[in-house]
């Protein structure tokens, strides 16, 4: 055991397997910044009726746990995944690091079934922010009123100006490293840290944008470009998408969770919540969770569901009872519906010069041009998208060659030799909400005996047009940057949202603007599932901003004596 500040050698083998048994027990929790070290943690008995039991510790739940604990509420936050110490638990190995993904069984169907279990899910304290790409972007203001201002999809019940304030808070909390002047959207506060140095892949995007006459910028990233507390500056290892082993990444695990613990929250790792209990007053009373081989029950005055767009509706549906035969919070019938993902297609090309795109955070430069164009002769779709530079690791790149291109044998070997000269652009595009894209319960059960989710997804014609437009644009930009041998990776999606949308009307939404369920006043949902639309940016910053806002709203409601 060591209290070394940034030591890392030798700890991988010395550390106990965080999957074996919970680490956050006995009045202490792992110190994420020191190998083998601990921080004190307040603990509650199952019989203690805590103010908030939070299910999930990702961008929504982890952030909310911190903010509520700092406001003085008693908080127990449960996560099905382990509690990592990145310095000792994370390896520079793609196969090993699949341990940070949610790989439990799920059924997928629809015309365009969503590939699950890698970039779109996380099973860790800190949720998928443990392996997120750190891209920290704000919604375009008009997206909060898509229906009324842009003429498609749904309005949010939130005002963008209020969200702007919470974006500021999140960017400060994460010490986001971003450009001094962001070319798109309303004026924003200066990012707390300066942008990172651009790698060659990012410069390819820049070159293409300058040739095409579109703007580009260093991408705002939640990884520090200078020391911050116990986080060293990012050393551009490039393993961000499978877990940062240096703690330069400002994830929920390294930012909000330590703050939550310091404020008195209890974090329960390896604690899978299987059911939310209700009483005759049609209020929730706590959660049933599985930990250390047995089912337990934690009493709580309020329950927050923050399991992301698949596990959140799954838990609400699993919690059906005679009082709530369609599942909790489902009087509208919308729980699990309007599932949205974001398209994540790429275009790749070969550069004469060595690029080594895997060095550095994958998305160091960004082009949001098409997020801010409403009308254009070529724009034949509703929705928006961005694209940024990319840096796949070797196995990921191999999967592109064998999957998207179907290469094998000698052709595959020849293509892999070009790896160091490859550059690519990847889009994040807004796919629209449709009722038929949904999460339901399958009959099969998982290792906990819980029915697994069935995820049904089909692109609309509008979605396909947006994707086509995005790939055309990326190809043109890449060609303008000097790339040759260009090919498209046409089938990829990432972030998941919807399935418990927020709104102003109980018949057309699951929660209100405060993330409070219309049906059950002491049940809250705080994660990406409350999004009515997804916009054309990565959602993690918006989820955290919503969590911060929800915490403030709860504080005000508590101050007024509301229960």
């Amino acid at each position, binding site marked *: 055991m060591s209290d070394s500040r940034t*030591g890392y050698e030798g700890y991988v083998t010395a550390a106990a397997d965080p999957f074996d048994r919970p680490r956050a027990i006995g009045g202490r929790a792992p110190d994420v910044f020191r190998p083998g070290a601990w921080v004190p943690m307040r603990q509650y008995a199952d019989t203690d009726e805590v103010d908030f039991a939070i299910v999930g510790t990702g961008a929504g739940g982890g952030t909310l746990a911190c903010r509520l604990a700092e406001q003085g509420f008693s908080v127990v936050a449960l996560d099905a995944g382990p509690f990592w110490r990145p310095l000792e638990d994370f390896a520079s190995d793609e196969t090993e690091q699949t341990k940070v993904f949610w790989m439990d069984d799920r059924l997928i169907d629809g015309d365009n079934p969503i590939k699950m279990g890698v970039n779109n899910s996380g099973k860790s304290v800190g949720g998928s922010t443990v392996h997120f790409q750190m891209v920290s972007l704000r919604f375009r203001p008009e997206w909060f009123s898509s229906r009324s201002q842009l003429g498609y999809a749904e309005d949010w019940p939130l005002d963008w100006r209020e969200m702007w304030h919470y974006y500021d808070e999140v960017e400060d909390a994460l010490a986001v490293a971003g450009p001094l002047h962001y070319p798109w959207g309303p004026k924003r506060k200066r990012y707390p840290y*300066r942008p990172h140095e*651009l790698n060659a892949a990012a410069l390819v995007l820049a070159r293409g944008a300058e040739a095409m006459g579109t703007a580009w910028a260093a991408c705002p990233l939640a990884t520090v*470009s*200078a020391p911050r507390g116990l986080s*060293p500056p990012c*050393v551009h290892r490039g393993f961000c998408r499978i877990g940062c082993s240096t703690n330069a990444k400002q994830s929920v695990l390294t930012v909000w969770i330590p703050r939550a613990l310091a404020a008195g929250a209890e974090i329960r790792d390896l604690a899978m919540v299987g059911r939310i209990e209700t009483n005759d007053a049609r209020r929730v009373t706590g959660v049933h969770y599985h930990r250390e081989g047995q089912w337990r029950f934690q009493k709580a005055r309020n329950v927050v569901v923050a399991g992301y767009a698949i596990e959140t509706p799954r838990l609400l549906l699993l919690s059906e009872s005679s009082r709530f035969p369609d599942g909790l919070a489902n009087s509208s019938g919308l729980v699990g519906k309007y599932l949205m993902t974001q398209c994540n297609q790429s275009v790749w090309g070969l550069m004469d010069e060595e690029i080594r795109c895997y060095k550095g955070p994958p998305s160091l430069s960004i082009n949001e041009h098409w997020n801010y164009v409403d009308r254009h002769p070529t724009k034949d779709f509703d929705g928006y998208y961005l694209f940024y530079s990319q840096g796949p690791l070797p196995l990921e790149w191999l999967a592109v060659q064998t999957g998207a291109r179907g290469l094998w044998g000698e052709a595959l070997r020849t293509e892999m030799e070009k790896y160091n000269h490859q550059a690519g652009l990847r889009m994040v595009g807004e796919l629209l909400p449709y009722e038929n894209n949904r999460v339901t319960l399958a009959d099969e059960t998982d290792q906990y005996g819980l029915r697994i989710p069935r995820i049904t997804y089909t692109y609309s014609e509008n979605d396909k047009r947006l994707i086509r437009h995005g790939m055309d644009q990326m190809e043109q930009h890449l060609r303008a940057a000097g790339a040759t041998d260009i090919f498209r990776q046409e089938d990829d999606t990432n972030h998941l949202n919807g399935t418990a949308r927020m709104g102003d009307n109980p018949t057309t939404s699951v929660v209100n603007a405060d993330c409070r369920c219309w049906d059950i006043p002491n049940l809250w949902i705080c994660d990406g599932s409350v999004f009515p639309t997804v916009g054309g940016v990565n959602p993690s910053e918006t989820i955290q901003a919503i969590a911060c806002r929800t915490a403030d709203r709860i504080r005000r409601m508590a101050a007024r004596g509301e229960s």
Partner: protein
Amino acid sequence: MGSRSPHVMAATGPPSTPYGAGIGRRRGWWACAHHDEGGPVHRLRQIGHDEEGPVRRLPQIGYFASSPVRRAATPDRDRTMSAARRLNQAAGLLAASVLADSGVEHYRGCFENPAMYLPLASSALSLAASLHGTADARGGGHRLRDAIYALAGLTGVAGTGFHLYNIGKREGGWSWINLFYAAPVGAPMALSLSGLMGFLSERLRRTPSNRPPRLLGFPAGRTLAALTGAGLAGTTGEAGLLHFRGAFQNPAMVLPVTVPPIAAALLEATAAQDAPSPGLRRATGGLLRLTALLGFAGVGFHIYGVSRGMGGWRNWSQNVLNGPPIPAPPGFTGLALAGLAALWLLEGKQ
């Protein structure tokens, strides 16, 4: 305070210092310099001889320890030579800083362009010339030193050209991100400043013994104050840019962008007045000394900064290259020494 002139001080005698013998001799020469301007030749030679002796070197070592106001009793020739040698020290410190800094940074850049070796060679020569000059108490110039300093000045200018080209050619051109991460825009000027200080030293050394020192056609103190102030401003700009890149994440990062410019402003104010108040001169001297100390303290801060990289000093081979530049801050010390030399000359003017 403001009305107290050096003459009054001379009449009443300076406060005692740890360097009793040296100060006492200066008191005698103060009177000589003012009552018999220029002074007898044989007595001036006596000074030159004394300067080479161990007693004369003591005040050099203790330069930070005593107020310039207390030194008001030095004769012009003595003062000029002292300033010249301090300028050698300044040039040497700047050269040492450039030698180590460009060595590390250009190694990091894999010496991709053969011209990247030039600042190492030039700064090494400048350092050698400065050491030689510091030890050389003789009057008159030194051609080789002069040539080396001229080379340093030109190399710095050429380096600035290279660095400007490096910034401008990148995607984004003259943007913040390129100013942050391309070749550092202000760094080569440190070499030019080394050359400049050495060049000025040589000019001072050539000052005829019966004339007040002049540099570039102007009174030496004012010229040196102006150039040092500009150098401090530029170096502050460079530190400011790079500390801004580091988001001023440590509060101490504010020091090099506040103390040196105040010192420079005070120096300019002192130089601009025919009779600056003792308070102003004391403050100028104090801030310049603080700047000089800050240059050395900066090395300590940067060593600590390197320890905050992933793996700390155990991972020194990466963190020294990517962390804050350890050899850079003493550039401030070099310029502060030049500023103190300017102050020294300005007081001689009184």
